[in-house]
């Protein structure tokens, strides 16, 4: 590929660019969805293309093409330079990149079994087996199963001399059952919206034991249709990992992307309350709240060797002992907070998008509680798990999240099942109400394969590690018209 990357770098230099990088990406994607014993979708995709990014006259230009040839690379690079020159008509400051060593490297996510070598027949048989178990009860009207395997083979080169080859393999799988009775209720495993995703191979799918979990998924979906509605009020809430991961993502991850903090996402995804003057001062959460960004953690969806700026993966605190301690940064913006080096968070969706700052793997560090002890210690609470709905304001303050399943906790015991549970809060108040986190035995990474940001819209993936945690005096049961607690 070096012959191709050299064409872009040399063309850009000739045309007067001060900086150029090119990413060539070959993507293989296999997507399988089963639905009620048949095929919901089955698609094998192979695509290739490249994106060229330049800095010319102090401004960015970017162009991409799906035709990988000398002529196409030259023409696309020329287009990127023209776009950069147009950008330079409306800039207030010239782009300056933070220094980064030059790398020549090859990096691959580790895995045991290449999922693309497993016959589709075997994958379908596994999903059909889970489907059959879920539909043994005719109250389950929709049973789905899915698997996704994505291999991105990337070649990155820039005019500073780096040439980096990476192979990122991501696998995902899950099942869900929709029961229709008095209400329509969905239950998923291992998490919602497609299940669990990791940078692993087919061994991850095998470890999920989808068929063994299908009966529980089925029975919980059916039970939820006649369960009591989550009563409105103020309650202590224990969030399971299937919800807490999303809470971290929305209320800490996005809030600490430096581009949106600085207003570059103001027209679409929004800005952030966590502004730069708060760095190292603002109490984001209680003292036990430690949130660590880590692009090196094994099996994380954002685990990479290098980001799309060519910056090596790192680990750092976003929140340390409850205090805002850092941001997600890139080479362009690191200097704004006085940092000499990027944290390596610039990632693009495929070859045809420009890299933007994305949340990396961001995790809540474990505490010391056993889950049973935490429940015993809770007098009047609700245990909620598995995300169903999410919404948060454009500064990442007011959020409202719903979960697939919940149980009431009364005097230290998990009691009745609750449906349509949700909770609402203001980000710093909520994280400051965190008074207990379970220990490392309960800690797991939850994959988010579909994080949207940017214009044009870009998808990225990342994981959030956490163990169940308790939050005090939270508003629950928002907007529900069903029975209240006093009517049960």
């Amino acid at each position: 590929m070096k012959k191709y990357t050299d064409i872009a770098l040399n063309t850009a230099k000739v045309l007067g660019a001060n900086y150029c990088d090119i990413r060539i990406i070959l993507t293989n994607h296999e997507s399988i969805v089963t639905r009620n014993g048949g095929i919901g979708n089955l698609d094998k995709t192979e695509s290739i293309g490249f994106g060229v990014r330049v800095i010319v006259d102090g401004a960015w230009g970017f162009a991409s093409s799906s035709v990988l040839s000398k002529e196409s690379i030259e023409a696309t690079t020329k287009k990127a330079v023209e776009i950069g020159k147009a950008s330079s008509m409306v800039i207030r400051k010239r782009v300056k990149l933070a220094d980064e060593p030059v790398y020549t490297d090859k990096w691959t996510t580790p895995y045991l079994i290449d999922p693309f070598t497993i016959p589709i027949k075997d994958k379908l048989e596994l999903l059909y087996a889970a489907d059959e178990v879920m539909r043994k009860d005719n109250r389950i009207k929709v049973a789905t199963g899915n698997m996704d395997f994505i291999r991105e083979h990337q070649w990155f080169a820039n005019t500073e001399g780096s040439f980096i080859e990476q192979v990122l393999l991501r696998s995902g799988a899950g099942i869900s059952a929709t029961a229709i009775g008095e209400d329509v209720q969905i239950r998923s495993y291992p998490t919602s919206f497609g299940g669990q995703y990791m940078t692993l191979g087919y061994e991850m799918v095998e470890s999920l034991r989808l068929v063994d979990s299908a009966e529980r998924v089925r029975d919980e979906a059916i039970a939820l249709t006649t369960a009591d509605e989550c009563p409105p009020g103020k309650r202590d809430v224990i969030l399971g990992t299937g919800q807490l991961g999303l809470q971290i993502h929305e209320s800490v991850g996005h809030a600490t992307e430096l581009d949106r903090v600085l207003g570059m996402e103001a027209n679409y995804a929004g800005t952030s309350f966590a502004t730069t003057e708060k760095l190292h001062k603002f109490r984001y959460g209680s003292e036990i709240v430690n949130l660590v960004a880590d692009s090196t953690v094994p099996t994380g969806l954002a685990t990479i060797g290098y980001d799309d700026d060519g910056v090596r993966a790192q680990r750092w605190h976003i929140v340390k002992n409850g205090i805002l301690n850092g941001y997600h940064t890139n080479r362009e913006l690191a200097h704004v907070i006085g940092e000499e080096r990027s944290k390596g968070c610039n990632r693009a969706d495929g070859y045809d998008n420009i890299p933007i700052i994305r949340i990396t793997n961001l995790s809540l560090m474990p505490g010391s509680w056993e889950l049973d002890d935490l429940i015993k210690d809770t007098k009047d609470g609700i245990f909620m798990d598995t995300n169903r709905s999410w919404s948060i304001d454009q500064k990442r303050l007011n959020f409202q999240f719903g979960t697939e399943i919940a149980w009431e906790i009364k005097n230290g015991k998990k009691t009745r099942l609750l449906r349509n549970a949700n909770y609402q809060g203001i980000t710093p108040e909520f994280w400051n109400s965190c008074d207990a986190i379970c220990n490392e035995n309960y800690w797991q990474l939850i994959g988010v394969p579909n994080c949207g940001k940017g214009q044009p819209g870009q998808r990225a993936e990342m994981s959030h590690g956490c163990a169940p945690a308790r939050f005090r005096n939270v508003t629950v049961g928002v907007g529900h018209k069903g029975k209240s607690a006093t009517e049960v």
Partner: protein
Amino acid sequence: MYSENQIKDIGERILKLSKADETEVLIFANEQALSRFGENEITQNVAKDEIGLTVRIHHNNRVAKVSGNKSDDESLKKMLDNAMEIASLQKEDPNLLPMPEKQTYSAPVNSYFESTAKFNPKDRALAIRKITEMCAEKGLEAAGIFSNGVGAVCIMNSKGVYGFHRGTTANLSVTAIKGNNAGWAEKMVKDVAEIKAEEVAEVAIKKAIDGQNPIDIEPGKYTVILEPAAVTDFLSFMSYLGLGALPYIEKRSYFSDKAGQRVFSDNVTIVDDAYDKRSQGLPFDFEGMPRKRVTLIENGVFKNVVYDRKTAKIAGTETTGHSLPQPNSYGPMPMNLILKSGDKSVDEMIESTEKGLLITHFHYTNVVNPKEMVITGMTRDGVFLVENGKVTKAVKNMRFTESIPNMFNNIEMIGKETILHSAFFGGGFIVPGLKVNNFTFTSKTEF
């Protein structure tokens, strides 16, 4: 940009190379560009030129689908071999519908404008420079996008289906910011010549200035004047939660078992119409069937949902031409919804309001309860208190949690001006503003 002949040639080569019983080719070609600005300067500026091929085969009563973006014969042969292998590894599907025969499509509305296709980075930069200067003059920061592009879609199959459609879209979206508060305006069109950048910027700037020093009010039920952009969230979520045949048949839709019943205020009529001159105008669906004009809600009465061939067969009816690419697990979906406009201007809605809120648009709306169609979201970029027929103060943002049927059952007035708003799968909705009573806000935020 790929020409129709180039795209057709790729499709014909695939059909010729295929050994399957039936073969369908769906091709999307796009040339898109977007300049993004923030803090009164261009921050990103991008362009893409690409093609995507999806081949679906039916062979021995089995289905397979493969996709790619390489169009040389060797790559196409590899795709087809993969498809045959995938098909061979499946069990027979006794319910597999044969692909449709050759279809005839009505003449589409004009969707392609050379002015939009030729709009270049310098044209966008000049408009953005004007916007940023206007904002800077008032002490505001501008953020937004100016995009333009051409998209083509082609469907062909081995039984004679051939459909090709090309359209252009341009979008200018401006957020003017001062401190914690912002104003927003947007113009999405097929012909970029209709975009007057200064006019869009003026609306955003006025909202930002008027939006300073917002007051705190308590959540609860309010009369609201929803500008068209705020109404789009309600139509978008209804389109996929309730108006497709699959959730309807499976009784997951709010409208299941409600045919012929009054479900909304009697001033509400909603149709799906690809042939309205304001629409994006794709005259066929993604299995090659002609799109029909469908009345979904008429004077508040629920009439129909949209169908593809598969759901039509289950329901014992005919397809309305609303298939997504097959096979899929979503079912058919309306892509060209039109909420029938009324005769009131936003000013008239304000003048008629004793106490209420004027809402610019919503942020991050999402589903709380899919069957009841309860959704939640935040106001943003301009919320104003209306008292005794006048806008009096700016208000801090609040969260609504409201059911779509409740909203459509409390409509007092419908606006006469409409906007085109992008919808799923390249569709577009035509949406007026609304005056709605008893609209529920459930919490507030700090700005």
